[in-house]
């Protein structure tokens, strides 16, 4: 029984680790693409807030509507 539970825990851990790794890889690639393709990058003075791309969300420090604020 103990052996079975150990194998079970290991499998779940491997599954989680595999997915986290894949997501991290995907996010890194997307971030690069986003920055490269960024059409309307609006950054506030010393604020560190960034309004990304074109969309319909109001950017707090720009007249341009953006895809998202972060």
């Amino acid at each position, binding site marked *: 029984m103990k052996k079975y539970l150990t194998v079970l825990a290991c499998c779940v851990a491997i599954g989680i680790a595999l997915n986290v790794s894949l*997501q991290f890889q995907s996010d890194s690639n997307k971030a690069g693409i986003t920055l490269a393709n960024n059409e309307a990058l609006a950054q506030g003075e010393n604020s560190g807030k960034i309004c990304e791309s074109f969309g319909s969300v109001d950017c707090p420090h720009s007249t341009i509507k953006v895809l998202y604020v972060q």
Partner: protein
Amino acid sequence: MKRIFAAVLLMGLGITMTSCSAVATAEVVVFPETISLQGKKKTMQDSVYLRYPFRVRLKDDILYVMDIHTAAHHIHLFDYKILQHKGSLAHRGEAPGEFLGTENIRIDEQGDVWTLDANKSKIVRLVQQEDEQPIEINLDKKLVRTLDFDRLNDSVFIVPDYTGQHRISFVNYHGNILKHAFQIPSSNENENAIVSAQAWRSFISYNPHHGILAMATQLGQVLEIYDIKQDTIIEIVGQESGAPQFTNRGGYAVPTGIMGYSDIHVGHEHIYALFWGSSFEDIRKRPDDHREGGRYIHVFDLKGNPVRQYVLDRYITGFHVDEANKKFIALDVNSNQPIIEYAFGN
């Protein structure tokens, strides 16, 4: 063999558990019926490039389409029957008479076209004929920033409040504030007022026929219904579970929840609201996979009871409701031919 099968199953379980992101599919509102609609593309005869069409209106067979990311004019007029371009209004620019942006289109009984430039704090009646003069209404600076408007009557506008002190304000044709009404229906009383107003940024629609005003949150799933004639709150749909999620970052509301509603219309018997439901987490992580727009038109009665949900075959950003002919005219921002017609009659 059994152990291998169990191992594969558990690995799959682990992957599934960590793949679930916070998508806004929680049932804030349950609709008694859901109807799928297939759109019919209306081909434009002329090559008017619409970069990000966001608002559409139809009056007397003239279709008015507003583009929020234009290089030239923000509003284009088409003959709706043949979709032939008839003219353009609201030129983009910083010069007097030009527009830094437009938020909405309102057409009055005389067929005059009104728009709002939030960045210049002006409501403007646009010129359609050469002998006309534009009417520019400079909004009271106490309004801070006005992001939508509708006409109460011939001499008063309704605008959403941006100070966080109220929910809406009434403004006369000189831009002066006549009065304020209601409050942001937030349960977080400790939040900074302006940050709260930013997070609760809503689109509005007023129907003078019965005096109902509805507001729909862009960054959440809350629908507010007010009786303006009686000065009463009728219903706040999704007040708790659909409230906008955000973080206060340096005095600004940074949205962390979902893209909620993007357009709303109060009809004679129903309220129609366009819902997106895409999470900002997903948009940030996978911007290239994201499709702008929503596929859901939520229909409520005037008391706020859910009536039905239409699921569209395309992602749209704005729509016009033709209740008499039972059709939606929608804007597919992801297509070069963005005008789509949906029949919703039985």
